[in-house]
């Protein structure tokens, strides 16, 4: 009797092992297309980010380059002003007798 019970238990255990192995073998087959899997993963990630981006307010424009150009212009205008004044000084003078 004891022997029969042990035999039955062993058979049940064997069926259980086969069933578990079958589950393991089936699971990879559902993800046999890695590309599709990756795409799915990416789409879910970007979808989340996109939702976050829409929620963020628009950043102010970067005017660093424009500001630098305007500063350069201001600098050049100051130089021109200095050259104009130097020229005007010559235009309003006269050359005396160099021998005196």
């Amino acid at each position, binding site marked *: 009797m004891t022997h029969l019970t042990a035999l039955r238990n062993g058979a049940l255990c064997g069926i259980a092992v086969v069933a578990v192995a079958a589950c393991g073998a089936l699971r990879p087959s559902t993800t046999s297309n890695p590309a599709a899997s990756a795409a799915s993963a990416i789409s879910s990630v970007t979808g989340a980010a996109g939702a976050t981006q829409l929620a963020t307010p*628009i950043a*102010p*424009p970067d*005017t*660093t*380059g*424009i*500001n630098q*150009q*305007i*500063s*350069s*212009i*201001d*600098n*050049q*205008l*100051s*130089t*021109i*002003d*200095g*050259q*104009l*004044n*130097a*020229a*005007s*000084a*010559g*235009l309003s*003078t*006269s*050359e*005396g*007798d*160099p*021998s*005196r």
Partner: protein
Amino acid sequence: MNTRLLARGVATLTLTAGLGLAGSVAVDAQTTPSPAPVATPTAAPHTVTLALLKEHCNVAVQRRLATLAADDTFLRGSVAVSSGDRTTLGGQITADQQGLTALDATIQSDTTYLKAWADCQTIVTGYRVYVLEDPKIHEVIAADGVTKVDATFTALVPELQALINNSSVSATVKAQAQADLNDLTSKVDASQTSISGVSSSVINLVPAGWPGNQVDLKSAAQNIRTAHSDLAGAGADANHIIQLLGA
């Protein structure tokens, strides 16, 4: 924040330029003699000895050489001068320096008062350093500077336009910024008209044409001043646009 940084930068530049300008005027003031009667064609009475006359003439030459050296420094240091104008002015400065140095040597070797006096007058009549060469050099540097600023504005206008177009400010503010940009563009156009041909109108003026060519120098100075004024207005417009859009 950007606007505040810009305002601080402009203030610093203005102060720096002011100091530089003061230095520039001081240099010229030291080398420019005070107005005195123009030399007469006849020799003055022998109130000084030949040795003293030669000394006066040498001082006159050295002062002019110092002015030309300062002009050469301005020319070399200016990033706005066109390559062609830089070569032309540099050649003129070198020729004047060599000519005056040779003239001084001639005067120092003269053996009579009259000959030395006559040669000494050539320091003025042959070179016109203070009234022609020096102002001419400054005018060409300034005129080429205006051309360079015009080019900078030409590159800046589309960037400012894009800034206005993409701005998230209200329609009213955007319209104000656009009006400023339109004004800026018209001022840059006006300055280009004013400065056209100015450098070439003065760069080849020679002492032999004095005093008739003084008219050309004064006309050029007026055109540069007008162009400068327009560009200063355009600069104010640009600053205002940034202020409007950054607010």
